[in-house]
């Protein structure tokens, strides 16, 4: 299977701007003899992009290159045309790292205010901005205690708050939903969507693919340091046409239906569940079809011609999780 590794696709809902907000141009990064990211080309112009991949796939390295924490060995990373390694680019980037450390002796508000002051805002402006972002992340009235006493979810909120302080064009969020309770997750997802509507570009790394699917269908999938594919989940699915897809079919007379299915060109495998003794009972067939589009077209014709009574038809691996499984060669 050949995937369009360097294909860059912009999210459908993302507003178009003249220059990309985040641009990776043939970027490679080594840690000694180990390669972190390998010839990555990626262009983001707005909206929310999910970054998924197995552990060690290079997600964190990619995010740190985007935030200017790391410098590429080969290629160029730029934010709104400015080199990401340059300190001036940090005015355009809000970063929510996955490391769970703070200036623990401070309260949540003091920390956020200190971060605002380090952006160069005046005392009054820093206070106003801190109050605003703390309210945005739902920490109002709860951030006067020392950070070391915070729950994981509260710490995540403070991390997000400091990233929003300077109204950045690009928000890089490394596992922002980690440790957040379900209600908090919903709040975060709504906040991310609101920020995207304001024209911000969000790059969100997450293992929670189900949550990420609620947020965006535009994902970049990393594997072994490369961007294996980037695009919407549907586009990715289309790229995987040659990869067998599992489909569940519940129908009457499953043995007869199975024999008809095996005659189809696109069906490469078939599992017949417990076959009912009574022919009026429904049985389950799970098939693996190579080319979903032509399969469904032929299957529809077969159903009409043979009068097959189908009670249920379900694609078992259309989710991002399954797609990721395919792309990562079963690592997940």
């Amino acid at each position, binding site marked *: 299977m050949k995937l369009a590794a360097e294909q860059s696709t912009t999210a459908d809902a993302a507003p178009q701007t003249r220059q990309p907000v985040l641009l990776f141009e043939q970027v490679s990064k080594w840690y000694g003899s180990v390669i972190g990211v390998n010839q990555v080309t990626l262009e983001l112009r707005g909206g929310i992009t999910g970054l998924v991949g197995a552990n060690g796939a290079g997600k964190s390295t990619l995010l740190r290159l985007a935030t200017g924490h790391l410098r590429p060995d080969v290629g160029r990373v730029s934010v709104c045309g400015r080199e990401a390694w340059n300190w001036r680019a940090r005015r355009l980037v809000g970063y929510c790292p996955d490391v769970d450390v703070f200036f623990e002796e401070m309260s949540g508000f003091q920390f956020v205010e200190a971060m605002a*002051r*380090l952006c160069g805002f005046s005392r009054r*402006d820093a206070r106003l901005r801190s109050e605003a972002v703390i309210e945005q992340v739902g920490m109002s009235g709860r951030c006067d205690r020392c950070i070391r006493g915070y729950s994981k979810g509260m710490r995540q909120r403070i991390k997000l708050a400091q990233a929003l302080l300077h109204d950045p064009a690009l928000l890089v969020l490394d596992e922002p939903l980690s440790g957040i309770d379900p209600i908090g997750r919903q709040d975060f997802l709504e906040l991310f969507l609101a920020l995207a509507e304001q024209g911000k570009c969000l790059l969100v790394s997450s293992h929670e693919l189900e949550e990420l699917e609620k947020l965006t269908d535009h994902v970049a999938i990393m594997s072994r340091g490369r961007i294996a594919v980037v695009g919407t989940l549907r586009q990715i699915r289309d790229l995987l046409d040659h990869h067998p897809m599992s489909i569940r079919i519940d129908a009457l007379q499953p043995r007869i239906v199975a024999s008809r299915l095996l005659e189809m060109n696109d069906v490469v495998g078939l599992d017949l569940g417990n076959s009912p003794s009574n022919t009026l009972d429904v049985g389950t067939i799970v098939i693996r079809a190579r080319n979903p589009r032509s399969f469904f077209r032929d299957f529809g014709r077969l159903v009409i011609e043979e009068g097959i009574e189908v009670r249920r038809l379900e694609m078992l691996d259309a989710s991002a999780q399954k797609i990721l499984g395919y792309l990562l060669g079963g690592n997940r």
Partner: protein
Amino acid sequence: MSITPGMHSDVSILRAWLELLWLSIRRQARMRQMVWIALGLLFLAVLAVGLVTLFGSWTLADRRVRMPPGRTQPATQGASSVATTAKKSTEAPPKQSNPSPSASPIPLRPRRLTYQETIDVSQVLMLLGDRGGPVQAAVSGSLRVALVKSSFLIFSRWIVFAIFQSFLLPLLTLSFATDALGAERENRTLTWLFTRPLPKPAIYFAKYLAALPWCLSLNLFGFVAICLAGGEPGVLALRLFWPAVACGTLAYAALFHLIAALFRRPAVVGLVYSFFFEMLVGDLPGDLKRMSLSYYIRSLMFDATASMGLSSDQLTVYNPVDGWMALAVLAGAVATFTFIGMIVFSRTEYREDV
């Protein structure tokens, strides 16, 4: 208030840098393990100096005179008994455990006199009409002056040079100086500074400046404590040497700050450097010592004692450089280490959390 896209604010890099400086000074206030270790050693040193001051003496008065092999002490030639008499006249009678050589059938090796006894004997001999009186008087007088100054020399040599300047000064400095960046690296909080729109060299320089008030306070406090515990010679040493201690602190702080930017375990590297380079190489004859900061700090101290008419061998500084030269080298070291550190820091990727 809500933050809206495109909202413009008055943003100042200088203000951000000053805030970083102030934040770093406040965060340096946390007493870490190395600071407690350094303070513990300082306390022990002050205690030891205080006990010596209380029960002993810093002067040479009670030390025995060294003579070249084959020669006897001039004052002891037939005058040991006189010395004993002289001592008796000024002090409480000592326990006469050994009989005098003349009274003993077995010839005993004559006891070496102390410097004070030598002066006393000379005076007694002068009173007895010894020939060569003016020469004896001159020797006795200069010896008396030397004895007065000897307390300062001994205190400087053993306490200021051997203990404070060689050992405590680097240790106290590195306890704070390596922490400025080292603690941020160790705790992985450096990430927060890198997310702010501040040039990396400015972060490095702010961290260095933030460490200085703590390094200077700790070192000068330590030096004051140890000198005051030393009594009169200590007060004199404090008056003469505190500028050298301050200059040395600035130089060591710049060096250890650079080490913190270069190494993941800066305290260990700093300790190894202090013990194996500054303590050993800085005290060696030859030109290698010019590579150590301690040599220039000692030269500054030596220069400060010039007004007392002391020669170099008395302060165990081998071929010291001129005071201004030492000051210039230390200032150059501060500037060079800081400049190198800023470049290194701005080019280095800190991957502690990668």
